[in-house]
């Protein structure tokens, strides 16, 4: 075991810090920390799109991709350092998480040379935004139940059906979607991974208003929407394997970065508790201490599993942070007391109210915690399937 950073890593950290200090200026620097983060993706969108292009110009998108595909070939630790410094600098939430972190590695692993040439530069320059088309009204935790279908007519796929819980759909240029391409197929078979342009007449987007009163997510309706026959990643019928491969790219970098945001939210909650005087109550102090202790444990857990090949590590991580974040959200309003019951005139929520409400989704999205428990108990603990 050696948990110190190498001198190369420290030099990399300096480089990241300097670039952020030089570029995160003006209006961008004025944004409150956490702007555009999870649950707040509607905030300052135009500014954040411009920022994404600036990051791209600086070569800071997709840094973990191999150099021949336009990345920096950054090590896992360097990716963590970038994400940590990014969060520490208070830089806003990214607008193209789906393109950068899910589609780009998928194209490197499963795409054709033509697909990489066509799509990677747009992501790496911050110019083409992507959304993910996985969930459907009948396929939430049970992704294999997708019913949206596509059929090949000549040199075009024609797509019909509905996706739901699509982040930033109205801003995305493209969607990567799992659709059924073999009529009558069931479950994991007969699915394909298609790349579909969003700006076309056959695509209709209806925002979903969440319990926060805001809209990060949308329903997406495909009615004879089209895409080129070439825009299938992997072979037709192999969509499940490609989609699951995508999930495997998450090897803990995002978890460590996410924790920097958690630390900030905890600090803000402690400050609010001090301001309201709630910190004097032993029960509140103990809950704050517990939140801190558990966040430390989650950090060591993320460090130990960083870069590991065990896919169950992501399930463990989610069981730890989802409920933790919900408890923090409860604390955030509890320490403010009655003051947390009043919103702005148009139901504008402050950060604590937003955290309290949005964190309800943490145990539902990206595979509900019940699904994670099934995965852990069967794949890691070897308990028999029911």
């Amino acid at each position, binding site marked *: *075991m*050696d*948990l*110190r*950073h190498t001198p190369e*890593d420290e030099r990399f950290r300096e480089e990241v810090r300097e670039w952020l200090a030089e570029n995160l200026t003006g209006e961008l620097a004025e944004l409150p920390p956490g702007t555009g983060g999870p649950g707040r993706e509607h905030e300052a969108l135009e500014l954040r799109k411009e920022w994404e292009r600036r990051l791209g110009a600086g070569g800071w998108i997709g840094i973990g991709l191999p150099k021949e595909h336009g990345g920096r070939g950054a090590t896992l*630790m360097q990716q963590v350092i970038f994400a940590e410094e990014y969060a520490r600098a208070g830089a806003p939430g990214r607008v193209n998480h789906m393109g950068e972190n899910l589609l780009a590695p998928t194209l490197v692993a499963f795409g054709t040379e033509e697909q990489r040439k066509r799509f990677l530069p747009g992501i790496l320059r911050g110019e083409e935004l992507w959304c993910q088309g996985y969930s459907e009204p009948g396929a939430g935790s049970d992704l294999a139940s997708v019913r949206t279908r596509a059929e090949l007519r000549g040199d075009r796929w024609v797509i019909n059906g509905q996706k739901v819980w699509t982040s930033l759909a109205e801003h995305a240029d493209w969607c990567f979607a799992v659709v059924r391409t073999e009529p009558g197929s069931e479950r994991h078979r007969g699915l394909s991974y298609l790349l579909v342009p969003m700006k076309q007449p056959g695509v209709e987007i209806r925002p979903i208003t969440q319990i926060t009163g805001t809209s990060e997510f949308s329903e997406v309706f495909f009615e004879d929407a089209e895409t080129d026959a070439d825009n299938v990643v992997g072979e037709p019928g192999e969509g499940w394997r490609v989609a699951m491969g995508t999930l495997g790219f998450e090897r803990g970098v995002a978890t460590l970065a996410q924790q920097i945001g958690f630390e900030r939210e905890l600090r803000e909650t*402690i400050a609010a508790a*001090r301001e309201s005087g709630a*910190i004097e109550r032993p029960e509140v*102090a*103990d809950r*704050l*201490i*517990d939140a*801190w*202790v*558990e966040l*430390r*444990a*989650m950090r*060591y*857990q993320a*460090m*130990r*599993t*960083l870069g590991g090949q065990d896919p169950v590590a992501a*399930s*463990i991580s989610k*069981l*730890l942070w989802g409920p933790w974040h919900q408890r923090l959200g409860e604390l955030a309003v509890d320490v403010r007391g009655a003051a947390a019951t009043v919103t702005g005139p148009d139901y504008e929520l402050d950060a604590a109210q937003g955290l309290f409400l949005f964190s309800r989704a943490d145990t539902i999205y990206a595979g509900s915690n*019940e699904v*994670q*428990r*099934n995965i*852990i*108990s*069967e794949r*890691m*603990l*070897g*308990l*028999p*399937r*029911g």
Partner: protein
Amino acid sequence: MRFELNDDQRELREFVRAFLERHAGPEAVRAAALDGDGFAREAWERLTGEMELTALAIDPERGGAGASFVEVGIALEELGRTLLPVPYLPTVVAAAALAGAPEAGELLERIAGGAAAAVALDGDGIEARAGAGGLLVSGTASYVIDAPHAELFVCAARLDGEPTPVALRRGEGVEVEPLMTLDATRRQGELRLDGAPALRLAAPGEGEAALGRARDLLSVGLAVEAVGAAARIFEVTLDYLRERVQFGRPIGTFQALKHRCADLAAGLEAARSTAYYAAWAADGAPEELPVLGPLARAVCNDAFLKVAAEAIQMHGGIGFTWEHDAHLYFKRAKSTELLGGGSRAWRRLAAERAGILG
């Protein structure tokens, strides 16, 4: 940054585990803990003799192997799995406390040679005064784990009003009353000192820091040990869930149990990471130890207690019997918590040391 163990460390783990599987199975543990005097002497002699496990933590110049606390932690985790009644933890903590004292060479050699030690680091019941040939200590320390089998003792004593670590050996002026314990796998004694000759282990002004480090090492050791113990009783429980058939199917197919197991696994994995990080920090980042000691102890003991409590429930009736080992783990977990002031107190202490609430 590398979190995983190196080849030598993995080899050490295999070596210790293989030995314990052969010589410290559940029957040997029960024989020593429940039918004997709470000391698996023969296993201890081999662990400290041919296995040289106590020498691990001692400087090579003083008869030891000069390993880090990571290696000691590996041995502790493996011992924790078995609950084997041997005084390894207090002995390595005593060795660490002795390491700072130039005159402690002979005591360290004795530990490297297999002498068992106990530590009494809490409480203020012991006074030290200067005597003709050195220090003389008097007073009482209660709930001293593994004291009945110890030849050497490291205690917190008050010397000229200052908390000071001192070392003494069993002999004149030293009396130990052995006690039966709720956790029979870890016996205790009451240590009564009456003018016993002792060696001062820290210079004036450095006593509190030296005692603090010893307490934090003890906490980290207990954390690693708890992870081992929790992992073992969890494995036993999972085996049972796969095998036990009710309503025509293994009870491990029921989500009511599966989901509880998944939560236990998540808590245990986080505890394991915390314990390993703390064991590394003992030598790798000693400035973090005052926070990590109590933090790791709380996180790991809490995880252990949950697993051990659930082990009884998930075993059903058999889990409530004396015959099954589940109660040994449950009692170990709760006793270890009660002995140090409790999880709540450690969490508060860690937060206070880290300045979290300002």
